[in-house]
């Protein structure tokens, strides 16, 4: 196999992409893309006449797909849509179609529809949308570090590229991109809305979220996710602070608290966003109802490379005697410590507040900090995509400047 060649064009493209804060991994094809169109005919199993009209089988497709189905002579009672083994939704009346966001990855997509007729009989049809075959490809995984620099408690704002040294697996790296200041960000504001937040606490938290959005720059976006043991409310990503809180009038806090589940959900929602990704969690951090453990969420958090901030609405020590039907005291303590460790490892930080009225100030502190961050990018010299953990260390001159950034990444 011919070793990959790093062309000047590739380097240029990479630099441009970095400057625009394009995807973390830049995938460049060195040979002409050749879409393999090995069409598979639509399958109609278990019934007659059920056909997926669109998208056509055998054609690669990406993003949001309008899946259109001809149910045949019998109108079904219910039509389920499945995407790669996961149910995407269902419709119970015409038009027999559904928009499914299938993502931008170059993967094979299987769309299956299952019709349940009024008599209970089931009919199925499936189309396969193949991936685009690439003869040879070269991965240039740009690693970006979001670095908070402080000197005597205040932001260190005048550092230059030459002041930083980046070590990846203890090997010094060449810094290829360097930014400072208003770098666009996308944030999920994750607010605990369990029963302990009823009334003024929830209002104070929402006011803090609004102030954060009001302070965002033009290219920044945020969404609000209110959670308890379920999704209580959410708003779409927006740059408009008023839209961020639109429709939340009358939203009531209720139920238990599933911090881990919803932190994972927030990270997942950021998965497709470009550039600097931030989760700001406002919660006491005591998780009672989650199905996921903090350790499981951490596996995702490390790979997402999002910055996680935690406004901890509690003055209690971590070892407080919390227990529930699901976890004993030791397990609760371990969970909350794991959450704190996850926050630190992400390059974010925890801000403890004793009163919910202080939430707005905490949101402002985080926004100010994000405004002052440095972004340093480099191509790891020993990247092998072998899933190995790469510890990262950043040094800085002058002395006395403290840096905070994530402590490594998996070379997936």
């Amino acid at each position, binding site marked *: 196999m011919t070793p990959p060649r790093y062309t000047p064009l590739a380097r240029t493209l990479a630099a441009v992409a970095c400057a625009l804060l394009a995807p973390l991994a830049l995938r460049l094809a060195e040979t002409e893309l050749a879409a393999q169109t090995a069409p598979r005919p639509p399958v109609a199993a278990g019934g007659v006449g059920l056909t997926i009209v669109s998208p056509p089988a055998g054609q690669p497709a990406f993003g949001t797909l309008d899946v259109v189905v001809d149910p045949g002579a019998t109108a079904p009672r219910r039509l389920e849509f499945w995407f790669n*083994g996961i149910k995407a939704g269902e419709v119970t009346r015409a038009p027999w179609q559904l928009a499914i966001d299938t*993502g931008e*990855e170059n993967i094979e997509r299987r769309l299956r529809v299952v019709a349940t007729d009024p008599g209970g009989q089931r009919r199925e049809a499936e189309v396969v949308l193949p991936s685009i075959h690439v003869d040879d490809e070269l991965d240039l995984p740009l690693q970006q570090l979001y670095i908070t620099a402080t000197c005597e408690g205040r932001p260190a704002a005048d550092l230059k590229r030459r002041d930083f040294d980046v070590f990846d697996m203890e090997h010094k790296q060449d810094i290829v991109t360097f930014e400072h200041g208003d770098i666009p960000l996308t944030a999920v504001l994750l607010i605990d809305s369990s029963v302990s937040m009823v009334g003024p606490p929830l209002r104070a938290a929402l006011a803090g979220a609004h102030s954060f959005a009001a302070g965002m720059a033009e290219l920044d976006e945020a969404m609000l996710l209110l959670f308890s043991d*379920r999704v209580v409310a959410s708003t779409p990503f927006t740059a408009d602070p008023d839209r961020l809180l639109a429709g939340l009038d009358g939203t009531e806090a209720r139920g*238990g608290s599933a911090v881990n*589940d919803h932190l*994972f*959900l927030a990270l997942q929602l950021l*998965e497709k966003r470009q550039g600097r990704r931030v989760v700001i969690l406002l919660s006491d951090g005591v998780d009672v109802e989650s*199905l996921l453990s903090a350790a499981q969420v951490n596996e995702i958090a490390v790979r997402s490379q999002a910055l996680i901030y935690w406004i901890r609405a509690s003055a209690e020590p971590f070892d407080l005697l919390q227990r529930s039907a699901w976890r004993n005291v030791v397990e609760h303590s371990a969970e909350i410590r794991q959450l704190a460790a996850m926050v630190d490892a992400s390059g974010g930080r925890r801000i403890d507040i004793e009163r919910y009225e202080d939430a707005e100030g905490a949101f402002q502190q985080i926004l100010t900090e994000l405004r002052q961050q440095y972004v340093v990018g480099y191509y790891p010299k020993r990247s092998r995509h072998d899933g190995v953990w790469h510890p990262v260390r950043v040094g800085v001159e002058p002395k006395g400047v403290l840096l905070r950034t994530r402590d490594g990444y998996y070379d997936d």
Partner: protein
Amino acid sequence: MSGRSQCGSAALVALCALALSAPSVVAADEPAAGAERPPTAQSFALPDPVELPPQAQELAARYREVFRTLAGGDRAAAVGRAAELEAQALAANPGRATEWLTLADGSLLGAYLQARPDCALPLVVFYQRLVLAHAARGRYRLVPRALHVADQLLAQMTLTATTQAERRLTADAYTGFAAELLTIPAPTRAAEMLSVGLELAPDDFDGNIALAILLLRDRRTNDAESRLDRVLKAQPGNREARLRRALMRPGFSADGRTAQELEKLAIGGESDWIALVAAQERVRRLLATGDYDKSIAFMNRVLERFPGDSSLRVALAFAAARSSHRAEAYLAAKTALATRAAAGEGARRIFAELPIRLLQQQTTRALSSADARTPSLAAAFALSPAVPPAPAVPAAPASPAAPATISSAPVGRFR
């Protein structure tokens, strides 16, 4: 006089004696931070009374008005007045209020019960409500005394319950009181009450499950297991008992029987909170094994039953993400965001909460029976003197009808 009434009279004497003795006092299970704390155990010498001291007489006169209101059918107003009366007495003389209050209402209660033994139940419910009223106001120093009187009235009912119907009624009173204690919350004390109630009505399956939940909270795993096993022996199909028993098995992540039981509960039967908890717990254990394909297959099955459960969709997104199906993970996450669960408590919260829900039926029965017996209280009230003398203390109460000390009462400490 029949043998039964003789026995009842002896019990009445004992009751009055116990009502006169100061309760050993302990705190509510989890009193609010900063709330007034109950005093530590105290004792005082019983007077050798023929007549009440003036302070107790004055209080007895005021209690009599409270009982007049109660006999008139307005329990809430009676409880409110008694709560204020006792709070004022305590504020006026913190050192001796408990003694005088006990002398005052003890004298009246003895007279009422002697006149109409069947008026005990409305009085039990009254004192139970008084306990809650004091606890709700943070007056923890007054809680133990009211609790103690309720205890003794219940003990009196137990002693005189000779028919199956009376035993069931007494059991309901205990169970109903347990349910109310859980609202304070005082789960240890509630478990003790429930335990006594279940001795009178062992076939109360919901009560047994409730007690198992409380025992497990108290880390009495073996006792909790045997309670659930008792239910399952009589009702093998009891779904809540099956779920709780399955989740109690040690090493359940590797236990095939537990997995099988959880899957049966999740997929079969009603689509209720029990099925949802079973599904969630099965998912949690599957994810812990790292078998994401199996997790996804199982989740797709249970999501057919629970399409609005966001926790299952989040777990589905996690399984997809961990098996490197990024697009599918994103789709599942978006779907989780769009789900809107039904109103009401989540399934895991219902599973974990104190079992007040399981005791509602008994509580309702006890209340309606108390209401039905209010006319007996009215009759007793009419037959009794305005302020009777305090009863003498029995010299050596040792018979079964006259428990000698508080510790011999069917219930113990109030924590």
